[in-house]
C-alpha cells in the first residue's frame, strides 16, 4: 500500500501484544515470564545438574565401591577418589575421599551412564553458589551423599526402575547362593 504502511502494520503487532499481555493466558500471547523466586516452573524429571552419591537408609552403606570408573570416564576429569583401607591395610569397598570439583564439572551425565553400581546420579538442585573459587565449590564425600528417598523424590520413574532392577539382581544372587553352583563340566 502507501509508503508508511509496513511500519504501521508492524506497530499494530506490538500494540496487539501489549493489549494481549493484559488479557490473554501465557499460551496464546499473554505474559509468558514467570516471577522466579516466588513462582517456580515445574521441574522436568530428566533435568540434570551436578552429580550426587546415593546411600540406602544410612550414610554409611553408600553404594559407591570406589572402583574409579567414573573418575576415568569423566571428560573434564573433575572426580577424585581415594579407596578406604581398614586398620590392617586391607582395601575396603568404600571410598575414603570422594571429591567432585563443581567448578570443573559440566553436568554432562557420563558418570551416571558409566557407573556399574548405580552409585552416582545427576541431581536437580541448581541454586549452588560459593563465596570463593576453590573452597566451598569443591564438594567432599559428605556434601555429595544423598538418600535414596531424595532420589525417588526428584526422579520417580528412573528411581523406581533402578530399584526394581536392583531387587531382581538381589533375588538372583540370593537364589544362586541358596543352591550350590553346578560343577562346570555339566554346564551346557
Amino acid at each position: 500500500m502507501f509508503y508508511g504502511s509496513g511500519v504501521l502494520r508492524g506497530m499494530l503487532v506490538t500494540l496487539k501484544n501489549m493489549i494481549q499481555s493484559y488479557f490473554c493466558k501465557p499460551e496464546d500471547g499473554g505474559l509468558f515470564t514467570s516471577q522466579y523466586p516466588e513462582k517456580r516452573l515445574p521441574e522436568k524429571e530428566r533435568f540434570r545438574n551436578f552429580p550426587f552419591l546415593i546411600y540406602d537408609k544410612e550414610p554409611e552403606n553408600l553404594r559407591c565401591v570406589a572402583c574409579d570408573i567414573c573418575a576415568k570416564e569423566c571428560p573434564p576429569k573433575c572426580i577424585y577418589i581415594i579407596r578406604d583401607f581398614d586398620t590392617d591395610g586391607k582395601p575396603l569397598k568404600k571410598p575414603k575421599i570422594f571429591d567432585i570439583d563443581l567448578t570443573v564439572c559440566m553436568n554432562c551425565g557420563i558418570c551416571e551412564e558409566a557407573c556399574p553400581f548405580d552409585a552416582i546420579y545427576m541431581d536437580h538442585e541448581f541454586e549452588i553458589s560459593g563465596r570463593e573459587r576453590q573452597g566451598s565449590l569443591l564438594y567432599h564425600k559428605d556434601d555429595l551423599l544423598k538418600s535414596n528417598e531424595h532420589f525417588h523424590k526428584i526422579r520417580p520413574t528412573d528411581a523406581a526402575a533402578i530399584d526394581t532392577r536392583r531387587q531382581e539382581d538381589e533375588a538372583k544372587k540370593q537364589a544362586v547362593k541358596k543352591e550350590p553352583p553346578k560343577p562346570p563340566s555339566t554346564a551346557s
Partner: protein
Amino acid sequence: MEKTVTLQDSGAIDTQTLDINIGPQHPSTHGVFRMNMKLDGETVVSLKPVMGYLHRNHEQIAENMFYLGSMPYTDRLDYFNSMTNNFVYALTVEKLAQIEVPERADYIRVIMSELTRLVNHVSVTGFLLNDLGAFFTPVLYAFRERERILDIFEEVSGARMMCNYFRFGGVKYDLSGEALVAIKDVVSRFPKFLDEYEKLLTKNEILCMRCQNVGILSPELAISASITGPMLRASGVNYDIRKVDNYSIYDRFKFRVPLGKVGDVYDRYYVRILEMRESLKILEQALKEIPAGEIMAKKMAPFVKAPRNFKPPLGESYARVEAPKGELGIYIVSDGTPQPWRYHVRAPSFINLTILEDLCVGHKVADAVVILGSVDIVLGEVDR
C-alpha cells in the same frame, strides 16, 4: 592515525582515515570478535576480522579423550544448536565403525535437528533486528518460541542448551509420550507465530531500506569462498546437504529448498524465514510417521555401560550435516585405539566469515554491523 589516504582525485582536499576497533567487547559482535576497521567519514575503507578470543583447544582435547567423552564438548561448538553438533559427531563415528541406527532413533534425530534449526533461525532474525536497532522486541518474541522448544529439549535430553543427547548408534533416552505431544503442540503453534513475526518485520520500510542491496554476495564469490548454508542459498545457489547427501532418513521427507536472487542482507533474512516454514513441514511428516522400536543399535549395547573401551576400526571418515549455519562436518582419523588420532571440525561460521571484508567495504559502519549479523556467526564454532 598513520599516513593520510587521498581518496578523491588529486587537487581535492585529502582526508584522513579514522582507524576504529569494533572490538572484542562490543554490543553487536555476537561474542568476542573484533573488526579492525578503517573509516573514511562513515564509509568502511578496509576491515580486518580478528578472531581467536574464544579458542578452547577443542580438537586437541578430543584427540586425548575417548570417543564418547568429546560428545559433550561438541555441544559447546555452536552453543546455539547443540543437537546438530551431536548429530554430525554421531554420524562420523557410525560411518567409521559401520553402525546401523534403528528407525526410531533416526526419526528422533531428524525431529531434534529440525527443532534446532527453528531455534537458530528465529533467534538469528531476532538478533539481526537487534543490530538494526529494534529495541529487543523481535528478539523477545523469538525467545518466547525458543523457550518452548528448549523446554522440549530439557524434557527429552536433560539440558536446555547442552543436550549431550545423541550416542553412537542411536540416542540416549527414548521420546516419551508427553514429549511427543509437546512437540506436536509447538509445531502446530509455530506457523501462527511466524505469520505474526513476518507481519511485524518483512514489509517494514525501515528494515527494507536498511537491508536491501546491502552486503550483496555474488554466487561466484560464494562458491569460490566455499560459503554454505542460508548465505549461499540467498545468493541463488541451490546447495542443501539434506538434499545433496540425503544423509540419515532425509530422503523420506518432501520439502523444498528456498533460494534468493540478489543475495543481500534482506534475502538472507527472508530465506531463513522460508527455511523455517520448510522445517515445519519436515517436522509434521516426521511426527506422523515415527515408528516404535529400539533407540540404540544392538552392536553398541556393551559400550553403553563402558564407553571407554569402544575402539572403532582403523581408518578415517568425514560426515557432514546441514547445520542451521551451513555445512558442519567432522573429520576423524582413527588408529584403532579408544582415542581418535586426528579430530577436525569444519565450522560453517568460520568459513562464512572469511568474506566479511568483501561484503562490507564501501558500506557504512552501520551496514558492517548488520552484514555481520546477517552472516550469523557463533564464536564458539568460529574459534573452536
